[in-house]
């Protein structure tokens, strides 16, 4: 499977990718985008099986990206990995069509809990 990791922080993208490996998802292809706009374009061109996205990014936020994808008819599985995990954010994410929201800081166990049902 192909996973698109989206975050404006290169360091955080590396941390997310490392955690994916540590959580056991080391046989998946990982591709990267640095903001929501690039992710939106890459969903069209790269056809990932899952998008993991930060929320707060320049150019286009993760939420705007998800809304644009759903408005365009894409049903690609989408989850947030973000520093804000309040109930309000989780509700917004779910209403927009996100499968889950992983709050930073996270552990490999957090990733497994969120991703096992998606990547199994």
């Amino acid at each position, binding site marked *: 499977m192909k996973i698109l990791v989206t975050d*404006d*922080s*290169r*360091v*955080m993208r*590396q*941390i997310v990718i*490392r955690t994916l490996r540590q959580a056991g998802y080391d046989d998946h292809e990982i591709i990267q985008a640095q903001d929501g706009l690039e992710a939106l374009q890459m969903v069209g061109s790269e056809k990932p099986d899952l998008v993991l996205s930060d929320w*707060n*990014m*320049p150019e286009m936020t993760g939420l705007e990206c998800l809304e644009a994808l759903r408005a365009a008819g894409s049903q690609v599985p989408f989850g947030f990995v*973000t*520093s*804000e*995990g*309040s109930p*309000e954010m989780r509700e917004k994410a779910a209403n927009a069509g996100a499968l889950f929201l992983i*709050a*930073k*800081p*996270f*552990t490999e166990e957090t990733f497994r809990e969120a991703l096992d049902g998606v990547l199994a």
Partner: protein
Amino acid sequence: MSDLLSSPAQQPITEMLDAATVQSIADDVWTSLVGDGEVLVPLPVPAPEVTVSAWVQITGRWCGAVVVTCDEATAVALTECLLRARPPAVIEQEDVDDALGELANVLGGNVKSLLPELSSLGLPQTGPIPPASRPEDLCRVDAQWRGQSLTITVQGATPAPHTERNEVPQ
């Protein structure tokens, strides 16, 4: 911080969270991001003369910033930890700004989640430590990591100017 102005008398941050809570958030961040066994010890050591800071702004009923401050060498060491970089890996300044900004971002996101009112979080910024406003609107953790000073502050923004004083006389 010049684009972030609080109301003249916002509720002080110290009425919404305390240093122990900020330390608890930092403990989780350090374990998860910096590394297993890496501890932010809540014992102050003398602050370095030259520091770098990263922060995120929080805008809502309470306006302010969550700021991480340390010396440059500590910022580089933190970056190496976040990237799990091993010598002779070369750490670029861009990565140092990015890593320190992400620490501020994750701390800020967790602090924001504890505020009673809905608010928004800005993108990470780095530079000289931004000025704090009123001393009572500041929650501060003076700590050390690997024996070096590291400070986390949750600080209210500069109070908004009184617009009536700034009007051009007729």
